[in-house]
């Protein structure tokens, strides 16, 4: 069974007639007959949480935007997927653009938004081309515009492309980018539900999160929640890469144990040393923790994070401290520089990790990395600085400095 990847491999993903013949837009029709309050109730029952990394409950966002009073509200599709090791949103935008447009339209109806923006990562030319073609086709067919499905619903979507900045995937940074500025984050609160794009109430969701909406509206929140395992609700896309037999995007129940997911991808090539789970803002998982269910609460209890769903498999030929150094340099490069803890912290972290990785240093680097990580987590204004220390701290915790505790 695949839910989110059901339209992968269509001859022409921008063929609206084929989409409708396969049941497309029946979720929007059902949404219009349900009404806004009932849609949000289904969403709440589904247990759907954000799939971009923060795992925030979707229904709370929808309810917040719906209740906010404003002359204009927005729905924003966050397709600025840039977390290293993540390629699920690209796959969805390339393979199934109409589902995302339908989901945005349902969301616009439920929260009372009149305009939408689809923001696609600048490196994803094919995804942007497909989404743009699908938006144009939907507009021609009256599925975007002044009177959608003859129901008096007015909503349209503008496509925007990023231009190469990891931090712009942060929600408030993405707003700044659409508004014509540098993609730098703002302090929160106020949150986007009341002060988002152009200062108006805004519902912003990761691509994968929105892709879940039409099936939830069609089949109900309880049905969707039941697709999960080990107490988790729904399904998740996982991006398997590195030392696995068959890298790719895999759909699996949320809550599936990590070991079972690796089996889906044909197993590990070589002898497993660690899994980098959640991307650069993720954590190194040692083999003893492979039985952990992949759900946000279970992972949090184990000191790990699901993040965006990146699953990078590393066998015992890999120098994990070199990987940590690469990630530390990545954060130092991608820090936008707006807030001090992140701007300076990511640079100092890269220096400390370099010293440890080279086997030199003063010996107190682990303690200083922990202190630095705590300050960055507390004082950085956005998720970049708040999570930039996670991989190196998880490496220290589970594997220790080079030469200690290696498999």
């Amino acid at each position, binding site marked *: 069974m695949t839910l989110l990847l059901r339209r*992968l*491999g269509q001859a022409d993903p921008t063929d609206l007639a084929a989409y409708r013949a396969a049941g497309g837009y029946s979720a929007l029709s059902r949404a219009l007959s349900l009404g806004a309050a009932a849609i949000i109730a289904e969403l709440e029952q589904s247990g759907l949480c954000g799939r971009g990394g923060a795992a925030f409950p979707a229904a709370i966002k929808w309810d917040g935007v719906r209740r906010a009073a404003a002359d204009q509200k927005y729905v924003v599709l966050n397709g600025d*997927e*840039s*977390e*290293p*090791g*993540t*390629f699920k*949103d*690209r*796959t969805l935008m*390339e*393979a199934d653009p109409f589902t995302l447009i339908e989901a945005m339209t349902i969301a616009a109806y439920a929260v009372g938004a009149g305009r939408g923006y689809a923001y696609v*990562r*600048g*490196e*994803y*030319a*094919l995804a942007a081309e497909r989404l743009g073609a699908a938006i144009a086709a939907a507009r021609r067919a009256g599925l975007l515009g002044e009177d959608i499905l003859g129901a008096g619903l007015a909503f349209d979507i503008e496509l*925007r*492309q*990023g*231009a*190469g*900045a*990891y931090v712009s995937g942060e929600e408030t940074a993405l707003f700044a*980018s*659409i*508004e*014509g*500025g*540098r*993609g730098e984050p703002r302090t929160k609160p106020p949150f986007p539900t009341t002060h988002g794009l*152009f200062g108006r109430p805004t519902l912003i969701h990761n691509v994968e999160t929105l892709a879940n909406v039409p099936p939830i509206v069609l089949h109900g929140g309880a049905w969707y929640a039941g697709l999960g395992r080990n107490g988790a609700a729904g399904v998740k896309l996982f*991006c*398997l*890469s*590195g*030392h696995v037999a068959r*890298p*790719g*995007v895999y759909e699996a129940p949320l809550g599936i144990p990590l070991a079972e997911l690796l089996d889906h991808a044909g197993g590990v090539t070589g002898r497993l040393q660690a899994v*980098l789970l959640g991307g*650069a803002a993720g954590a190194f998982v040692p083999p003893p923790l492979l039985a952990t269910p992949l759900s946000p609460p279970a992972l949090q209890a184990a000191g790990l994070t699901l993040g965006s769903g990146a699953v*990078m498999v*590393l066998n015992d*030929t*890999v120098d994990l401290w070199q*990987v940590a150094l*690469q*990630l530390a340099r*990545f954060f130092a*490069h*991608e820090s*936008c520089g707006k807030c001090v803890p992140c701007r300076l912290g990511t640079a100092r972290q890269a220096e400390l990790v370099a010293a440890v990785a080279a086997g030199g240093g003063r010996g107190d680097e682990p303690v200083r990395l922990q202190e630095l990580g705590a300050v960055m987590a507390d004082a950085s204004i956005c998720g970049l600085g708040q999570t930039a220390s996670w991989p190196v701290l998880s490496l220290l915790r589970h594997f220790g400095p080079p030469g200690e505790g290696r498999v």
Partner: protein
Amino acid sequence: MGKQNRPRAQRPPAATPAQRAAVDSALEQFPTIARHHSLPLLQAVQAAAGSLAPAVVAYISRRTGLAVADLYALVSFYDLLTDSPRAAAQLRICTDVACALDGRAAALVRALQEHLGIAVGQTTADGRFALVTTPCIGCCDRAPALLLSGRLLGPVHPEDLPALLHDPGAGREEDAPR
């Protein structure tokens, strides 16, 4: 008495007729221009003119009323915008974790440096290619990957390079497998 006027900042070189024509044609896509059009506008101009050199940005500002400082703030922030004076095709090699495993990205970078005779960060003497490395480009399932003039290609092996560079438009961006 009175202050001496500070010397005027050096003006950017005037845009060439070709640069002006590229900007003019890109601006036709924008019936109205507000600040929130800045990024799509710069992207359209870069696509038409090949780069956002100072003369080009100054001419955009003159045509639109958007401040040079605000436009240049974007050019300097976003990695995919370039103010390089030459309009070379960008080769962006992913050197992130998945592509770097087993030395694959490093081998690709080495092969490209040898083939093009330039180092990372440089542009070939004929102005055809600029070589840079990039963090993850979301193609880890087809590692090692690269972007050539905006198209995502992978897996790319050193032996594929001569054909790819001979005809940069030939490699087709493909759907994810399965």
